[in-house]
């Protein structure tokens, strides 16, 4: 039994590493060959986990071989457009200015109902609102509305946008993220000052503390309501 536990640990760590190494992608964003690869790896990993007579290497070797193959195929796809189309396919326009392209729809084996579902998922209710609908290589349908149905942008409304500000997570669940302190261009002393001002004794009492480029602070102590205020990032809080 102990052997199985140790084997599961080893294989789990390897699979975790392999998936991290292959990159972050959600199931729906995967290319067909990536999905196949994921399913095969999952299947391969379980064989030596439970079957103690099979060496762990018999599970690890095919997984590593698949990873190498994956990078090889990705590399070729990046270099060759032809190969990329052959492996990943290419986006197909299913709705254009003339309406639904039935020929393409049939070729992709998508029903009208599937198409409607995707359109509704993009917050459009009627076909006449759609300028183009494109089935991407991942199978996702991208919907481009007709100009008259497109949501207005700030530019259309001639509104000057606020400065773009990214909130950096300085403390999350009582843990100080030092790398984000540097990114936010603040110091440890600054964080201490904020905590002192909010009467918080220890970092571990903070559920979340974020700071954005404009000096907007969002702070919430554990089991207490949140607070927001703006500070001068170089000096003391304004409010």
């Amino acid at each position, binding site marked *: 039994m102990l052997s199985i536990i140790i084997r599961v640990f080893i294989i789990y760590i390897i699979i975790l590493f392999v998936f991290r190494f292959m990159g972050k992608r959600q199931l729906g964003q995967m290319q067909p060959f990536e999905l196949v690869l994921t399913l095969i790896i999952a299947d391969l990993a379980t064989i030596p986990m439970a079957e103690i007579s099979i060496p762990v*290497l018999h599970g690890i070797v095919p997984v*590593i071989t698949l*990873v190498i193959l994956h990078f090889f195929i990705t590399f070729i796809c990046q270099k060759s457009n032809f190969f990329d189309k052959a492996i990943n396919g290419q986006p197909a326009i299913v709705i254009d200015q003339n309406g639904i392209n039935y020929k393409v729809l049939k070729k992709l084996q998508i029903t009208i109902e599937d198409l409607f579902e995707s359109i509704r998922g993009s917050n459009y209710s009627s076909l006449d609102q759609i300028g183009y609908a494109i089935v991407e290589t991942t199978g996702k349908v991208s919907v481009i509305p007709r100009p008259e149905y497109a949501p207005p942008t700030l530019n259309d409304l001639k509104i000057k946008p606020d400065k773009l500000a990214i909130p950096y997570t300085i403390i999350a669940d009582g843990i100080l993220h030092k790398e984000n302190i540097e990114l936010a261009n603040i110091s440890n002393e600054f964080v201490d000052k904020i905590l002192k001002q909010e009467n918080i004794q220890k970092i571990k009492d903070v559920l979340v503390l974020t700071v954005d480029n404009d000096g907007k602070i969002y702070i919430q102590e554990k089991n207490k309501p949140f607070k927001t205020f703006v500070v001068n990032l170089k000096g003391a809080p304004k409010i």
Partner: protein
Amino acid sequence: MKKFILIVFILFLTGLVVWEEITVHTVLSTIRDKAILLEDRVYELQNVDNDEIKNAVKDIENTWENYEDALCFLVNHKDIEDIGMELSKLRANCNVNQYEDFCSSLSVIIFFTEKYSHIMGISFQNIF
């Protein structure tokens, strides 16, 4: 970094393949050669209850024990457990002078050592 890890993976697989080829081939061919020699000698003597045969059996057992752990890293344990089983029968048959059973176990050992190389070795048939 990714390129470095990929190179490490490729080197790891290459090293593993070479290690497997050398280890499995060496162990199985050593056992097979010793078993064939023993088989010839047993056919000559027509008797298995003597020190020469017992020493030869012990030698094969020692060789197997020395390499068995390394084999377990590379080979499905079920594929090699028959060899270990027949080796243990050799000693028992030697002690009770069971000539036919001894020869039978030796034949099984020779068969399995040859069969494994044939089934698991790199060949066109095994790949497809």
